[in-house]
């Protein structure tokens, strides 16, 4: 439940700095290839995760990451620094996702394709989590995923989905409680599975 990384362009006590995404985007608008490559390096993996969880199709996820950046190139002149690059990229990604779903007439938020998620040694548990997520209402699930996996702030999510921030908060609250209920209920039927999930897992999210 971490907060979205902020624009790292200012300094204060104990606060490290880095070139902000927005500064990189402006540099790219001005003709810098290096700035684009840095943005690509920063967001390639997060965007792959975004598409990967929603489509569950590694090949398409990879294609859509490239398409997202293609859209960035084509619309570079229209980007305005009042929008966070992070939010901007996910807004493009959401549009591409919607188009992809329309193309394949997929109604579910989570993918229905044949390939299974890469689960890094805990396939049953990852599948269990995914199935619990599928029980949530689609809008609630999307908010929960944007928060937990994309780590967007409430206001970013509100902006992307064009709903009030309070709605984001209340739906997030509801979906977390519901998910807790689903997971606990599943745990009762398969206690060993959940216990295995709490083993040390060196590849879980951490500093990258």
């Amino acid at each position: 439940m971490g907060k979205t990384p902020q624009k790292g362009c200012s300094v204060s006590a104990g606060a490290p700095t880095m070139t902000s995404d927005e500064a990189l985007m402006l540099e790219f608008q001005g003709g810098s290839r290096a700035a684009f490559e840095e943005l690509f390096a920063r967001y390639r993996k997060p965007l792959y995760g975004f598409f990967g969880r929603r489509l569950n199709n590694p090949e398409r996820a990879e294609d859509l990451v490239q398409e997202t950046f293609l859209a960035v190139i084509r619309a570079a002149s229209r980007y305005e620094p009042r929008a966070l690059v992070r939010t901007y990229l996910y807004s493009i990604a959401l549009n591409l996702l919607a188009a992809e779903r329309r193309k394949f007439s997929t109604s579910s938020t989570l993918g229905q394709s044949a390939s299974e998620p890469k689960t890094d040694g805990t396939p049953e548990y990852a599948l269990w989590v995914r199935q619990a997520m599928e029980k949530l209402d689609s809008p609630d699930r999307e908010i929960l995923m944007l928060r937990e996996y994309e780590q967007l702030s409430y206001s970013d999510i509100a902006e992307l989905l064009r709903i009030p921030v309070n709605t984001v908060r209340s739906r997030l609250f509801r979906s977390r409680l519901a998910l807790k209920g689903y997971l606990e209920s599943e745990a009762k039927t398969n206690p060993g599975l959940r216990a295995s999930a709490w083993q040390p897992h060196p590849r879980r999210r951490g500093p990258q």
Partner: protein
Amino acid sequence: MNTNRHPIEQEELMAYLDGELSADQATEALSHLELCPECQTLAADFRGVSQELLAWEVESPEVGISSELNAALGERLQKRQAAKVTSSRLENRVMTSRWVWAGALAIVCVVVGLKLTLTSRKRNEDRSTAYPSMASIEKYLMPDRNAEIALARSAAPEAISSDAKILLLGWRGYETAIEGKNGFVCMVERSWMSPFNSADFWNPKVRVPQCFNPAAARSILPLTFKRTEMVLAGLSKAQMIDSIKAGFDNKELPAPEPGAMCYMMSRAGYLNDSLGHYVPHLMFYFPLTDKSSWGADLRDSPVTLNPQFRDGPEPITEFVIAVGKWSDGTAAPAM
């Protein structure tokens, strides 16, 4: 949960755990959470859900920029370059034909503008920052002693901070609120520990929880005491800088000891108006060191050079490494 007994609602507690509350609200939430078993259970539930969701990982293949993307990028950059050249030529033509008029106009503007500039310079300088000078001291103090203790402790995991010495900021500087057992010192730094040229140097909203290890408590913490003492004495920035330089020259201020570091893993801190809570991280202190020796600021390097003391009077280099969890054990965003 009966909200009559709880100063914060359940949704607010969740928002606190998500780092979505303002510094004041977060402090209130943290303070209540420390004392309320019911809220601690709910917080544990939320953290548990987040933790379980981490099981669904998606491994990204190591793929670079595709040929199609590369071609589009090349085309875009080429067009941009062409536009720059065209624009530059056009500008040159216009300027050549009009330079005489522009020059004359410029002379008039300089004469008229000089007076206006001189008279408004001070006003403009003041407007350049939202916090041009020190606010009254009470704006920097936290009225709730327990809240400041909880905030200070939130800088490090409980296994460290529970036995640490706790300092609180009072009217006369930092004072010991709780004696420690493990040599660590936890406290909440204020805005004046920012670089001297920072726009947030006098920002009264800044609250930076930190837990120094014993080496840093001996060799870095004295800098905080020194700056705080001078701020409370009303010294100017120039006076403070001179005094710090003199302090290092005459060995009144120590060099960083080997192994000096601190924890900054609080989700309830407020680093400045741009960064807000920021991300949890650790800081390591050295005498002036080339950042390349740590590979800091290089692409994909997790190490960053912190500018807190860069170009400042303290001869200290400070490296930062972001970590994956807040002090309460919940996952945090990657840098």
